[in-house]
């Protein structure tokens, strides 16, 4: 007992020591009024003390990936960066294919997460998901990534169902001069260059080019995963303030990718023998976006934004060309004291042209979808710095699915300046995707004993599909006792209705030549369910040269089919996220020029095998730990050398198994080590 007592004292002493070490030199004695303006401008202020910070006072589960996080993570692409966010599930299928979701329903075609890059929606209406291989930027040009878990339908509209990821790039004013970076290692290699300059005194520009190469990995069952890729990108951004109250932004980009895929295909004539095809998919995409901000009075601003987006993906089984135009108008003001009102409206038109095969086609092959929406949200602060209430709604009409209302009400309470308690109730919808409406997919042949006779299974879309709905109840707590430490807890309970299912339609069985049966499987809205969970993020700087970050996620989804439904994917979706997930990072500034970072993450088991259905040949994915490390040396003020290792603890591991309409090859994610050079000029 006595020994235990001593340990207790020892622990307290160590803790006190750490805290004291973290205290800055006392500032009480400084008299700033004796300083000149020039001196004052040299005084360092930590912006973290700007209490309360925007994220701190947001009544939603927000996680911000900062410039510093990006630099210290050693990541080479956006999905890798997202691994640090609690509540977000990131699984890599192969070199270019990712399954990313928030709070449940993961998959290659995960469809409940909205992703925006500088206000441009990058999710595809084809399957309501994100083509992560195309979403690539120079990470050095990203200002921050704001991840909001939970519905964001009121501000961002349909499909901000379980989360929104906002990727915000730096103003061209902040990327002046040249930067070149090159990396090479056992798995991949790449290089990028950017240059920024000024046109006159109020217009800044930058342009960049980037190229990446990845070698093919080993497939899960041995052999090649044929997932090699070459990416080429170029883009620009111009920021201008022609008058003090007018801000203009214009950006654009073009992409050409060639990536390897493995397809399991069917021969179009009975007995429909299946064959494996390895094919390279060329993807070309381009976009242009313009935005104007006009301040009309203190706190009152108009914003107009519009973009064009074009993608062309020529997969061996389906070619899709899509053109999208979007425009939005927003107004922010303070109509009454203590009220911040934001309202606006927008429209989007998206047209596609597809060319199918016996395996996959869309009927009709061409389609245009449009939507119009209006929203208003008021932020009312009845007690300044103590209580803020937010309420608003979006009203959206989509030509396919009709009219949807997406309201939310949120409360933020600061019991003390350094604490925040928030609660929210919100509703969001996900509109049916083009595939869910119009798919015609010859999936596979089932033979006895799984079927009474050889049966070709065909998945059909359903024009009667309605939007999936969620009502989310959220509660969160934040504490930032010092600029050097913070704790963020968020919890949620989601109630889902009208979830999409794929159900057999046995009454519509037809006979094909050669004694074959054709069993249609069709999309319906035949499931409901709930999910709950909690997410934790912690931040602590015990000493000026040490930074510790951690995250923990616990989550569960329970889905129930409506009576009579025969869907087999719901169990897979239910089990598509790990129950627990852990992330930890320790960053050390060893000297003024040498930095060392360690990342560790744990992802729990995915019991996908429980689906136990001959139509879904998937097995469990084991839990795993993965460790990354980065050693950075700022050799000269303009030259940075980095040695980065990813997934260091295992030669290879599997993170996910594909299920759903098509099957992307599952690759063993290998250990990777590379050297990166970054030079400024």
């Amino acid at each position, binding site marked *: 007992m006595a020994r235990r007592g001593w340990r207790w004292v020892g622990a307290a002493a160590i803790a006190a020591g750490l805290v004291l070490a973290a205290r800055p030199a006392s500032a009480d004695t400084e008299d700033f*009024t004796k300083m000149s303006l*020039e001196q004052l401008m040299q*005084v360092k*202020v930590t912006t973290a003390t700007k209490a309360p910070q925007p994220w701190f006072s947001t009544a939603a589960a927000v996680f911000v990936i900062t410039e510093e996080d990006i630099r210290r993570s050693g990541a080479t692409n956006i999905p890798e960066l997202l691994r640090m966010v609690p509540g977000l599930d990131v699984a890599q299928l192969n070199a270019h294919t990712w399954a990313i979701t928030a709070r449940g329903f993961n998959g290659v075609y995960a469809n409940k997460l909205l992703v925006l890059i500088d206000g441009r929606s990058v999710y595809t209406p084809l399957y309501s998901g994100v083509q992560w291989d195309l979403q690539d930027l120079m990470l050095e040009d990203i200002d921050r990534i704001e991840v909001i878990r939970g519905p964001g339908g009121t501000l961002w509209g349909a499909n901000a169902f379980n989360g929104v990821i906002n990727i915000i790039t730096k103003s061209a004013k902040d990327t002046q001069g040249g930067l070149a970076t090159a990396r090479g290692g056992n798995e991949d290699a790449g290089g990028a260059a950017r240059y920024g300059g000024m046109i006159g005194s109020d217009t800044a520009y930058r342009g960049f080019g980037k190229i990446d190469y990845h070698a093919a990995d080993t497939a899960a069952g041995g052999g090649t995963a044929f997932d090699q890729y070459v990416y080429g990108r170029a883009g620009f951004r111009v920021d201008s303030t022609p008058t003090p109250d007018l801000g203009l932004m214009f950006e654009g980009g073009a992409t050409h990718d060639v990536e390897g895929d493995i397809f399991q295909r069917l021969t179009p004539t009975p007995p429909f023998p299946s064959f494996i095809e390895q094919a390279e998919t060329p993807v070309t995409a381009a976009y242009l976006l313009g935005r104007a901000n006009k301040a009309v009075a*203190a706190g*009152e601003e108009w914003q107009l934004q519009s973009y064009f987006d074009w993608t062309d993906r020529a997969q061996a089984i389906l070619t899709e060309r899509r053109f999208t135009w979007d425009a939005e108008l927003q107004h922010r003001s*303070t109509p009454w004291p203590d009220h911040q009102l934001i309202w606006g409206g927008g429209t989007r038109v998206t047209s596609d042209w597809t060319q199918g095969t016996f395996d996959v086609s869309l009927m009709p092959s061409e389609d245009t979808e449009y939507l119009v929406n209006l929203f208003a949200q008021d932020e009312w*602060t009845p007690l*300044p710095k103590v209580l803020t209430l937010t309420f608003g709604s979006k009203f959206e009409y989509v030509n396919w699915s009709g009219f949807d209302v997406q309201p939310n009400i949120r409360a933020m309470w600061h019991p003390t300046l350094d604490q925040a308690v928030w609660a929210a109730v919100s509703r969001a919808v996900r509109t049916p995707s083009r595939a869910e409406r119009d798919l015609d997919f010859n999936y596979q042949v089932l033979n006895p004993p799984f079927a009474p006779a050889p049966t070709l299974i065909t998945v059909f879309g359903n024009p009667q599909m309605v939007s999936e709905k969620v009502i989310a109840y959220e509660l969160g707590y934040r504490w930032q*006792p010092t600029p050097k430490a913070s704790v963020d807890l968020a919890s949620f309970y989601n109630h889902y209705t009208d979830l999409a299912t794929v159900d057999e339609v046995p009454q519509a069985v037809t006979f094909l030549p050669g004694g074959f049966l054709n069993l249609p499987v069709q999309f319906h809205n035949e499931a409901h369910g709930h999910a709950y969970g909690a997410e934790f993020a912690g931040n602590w700087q015990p000493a000026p040269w040490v930074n510790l970050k951690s995250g923990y996620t616990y989550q569960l989804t329970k889905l129930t089919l409506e009576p009579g439904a025969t869907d087999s994917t719901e169990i897979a979706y239910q089990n598509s996220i790990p129950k627990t997930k852990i992330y930890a990072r320790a960053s050390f500034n060893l000297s003024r020029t040498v930095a060392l970072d360690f990342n560790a993450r744990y992802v729990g088991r995915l019991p996908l095998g429980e689906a136990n259905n001959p139509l879904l040949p998937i097995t469990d994915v084991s839990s795993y730990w993965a460790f990354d490390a980065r050693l950075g040396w700022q050799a000269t003020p303009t030259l940075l050398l980095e040695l980065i290792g990813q997934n260091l603890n295992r030669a290879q591991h599997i993170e996910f198994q594909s299920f759903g309409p098509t099957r992307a090859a599952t690759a063993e994610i290998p250990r990777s080590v590379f050297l990166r050079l970054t030079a400024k000029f």
Partner: protein
Amino acid sequence: MKLRTVLRSAWALAAVLACALPAQAQNAAGREAAIKAAFLYNFAKFTEWADHRFGGESDPAVFCVGADSPMRPAISALQGQLIRSHPIEVMAIVPGSRLSPCHVLFVDDTLPGAIRRRLEGHEVRGVLTVSDLPNFARSGGDIGLYYESNHLRFEINIGTAGKGGITFSSKLLQLAVVIGRLSSRQPASLFADIADLFAG
């Protein structure tokens, strides 16, 4: 280590954190407020008001701040410092306060709504308005403080300030990001600047 020991250590750590850290947060916020107040003092030193704003040589220079503003303690600490020959007097603004005695007004969201509306309507003339609200100078205020890589910087809107008979010395303008164009009233300030150059 046994689980109980771990728990005890955690509690000990939590207790120490709870005692030591809020005080520190207070210090950091207070320090930043003091720095901003020092900026305010310096802005006043390099600003000229129209002659009628001061009755006599030792009339006070009135610094106004919202009664509930977190900046109020730091600005109150300036009381008695001299702006040329004028001692600083700090006035707390409550709903119904008149702004006409103010020479400097610190604007933040704790100011009563009616007063903020008067500012937005440009009904307040001859008062130097300073704020750390985003885009303050760009949206009609006089001087906006902002952060740039952990340092405070300021923007001056010379268009609006000129209208109230307020002129800035060239020294201030050299250090600021100047926005707005010289209005027809600005020659007065140009002359003041030239005089300033010769003087200093």
